[in-house]
């Protein structure tokens, strides 16, 4: 697999995570003031499950998204792997 292709897949997966995270944040904020809205709550749980699955997939392929005990790491300790978000130029092409 060439580099551009791998970066593309990584970017697409991150894009999906971002989109679903946006749904869960907004539904969360709405539910704070509408805690009895069953439809919104179902949607929140639906997208939360999707988000959990996508994050798991991302972390298995590209390393931990979080630290301090929220994500597992392979050997060697992968948290220090670059790029950091403020460095990632190569897979941000076109955004």
């Amino acid at each position, binding site marked *: 697999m060439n580099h551009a292709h791998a970066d593309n897949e990584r970017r697409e997966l991150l894009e999906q995570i971002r989109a679903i*995270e946006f749904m869960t*944040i907004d539904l969360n*904020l709405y539910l*704070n003031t509408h805690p009895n809205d069953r439809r919104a709550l179902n949607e929140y749980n639906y997208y939360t499950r999707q988000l959990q699955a996508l994050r798991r997939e991302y972390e298995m392929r590209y390393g931990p998204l979080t*630290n*301090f005990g*929220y994500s597992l790491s392979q050997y060697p300790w992968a948290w220090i792997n670059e790029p950091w978000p403020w460095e990632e130029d190569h897979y941000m092409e076109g*955004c």
Partner: protein
Amino acid sequence: MWVYEKKLQYPVRIKNPNPKMAKYIITQYGGPDGELAASLRYLSQRYHMPIPEAKAVLNDIGTSLTKLLI
């Protein structure tokens, strides 16, 4: 408590660097009336909220604003 996420909430590519605009944006972020100050105000105001809905709103807006910045 915060957990750092090793990704951007919304990535942007700067095609035309513009120092004047950069200065303006950084002020909107970190300046006296910026997002960072606002988020910390929300987090202080949450302690004075009388009902669960309001506590949650201020807690969550305060935290999601900081996530946007860092």
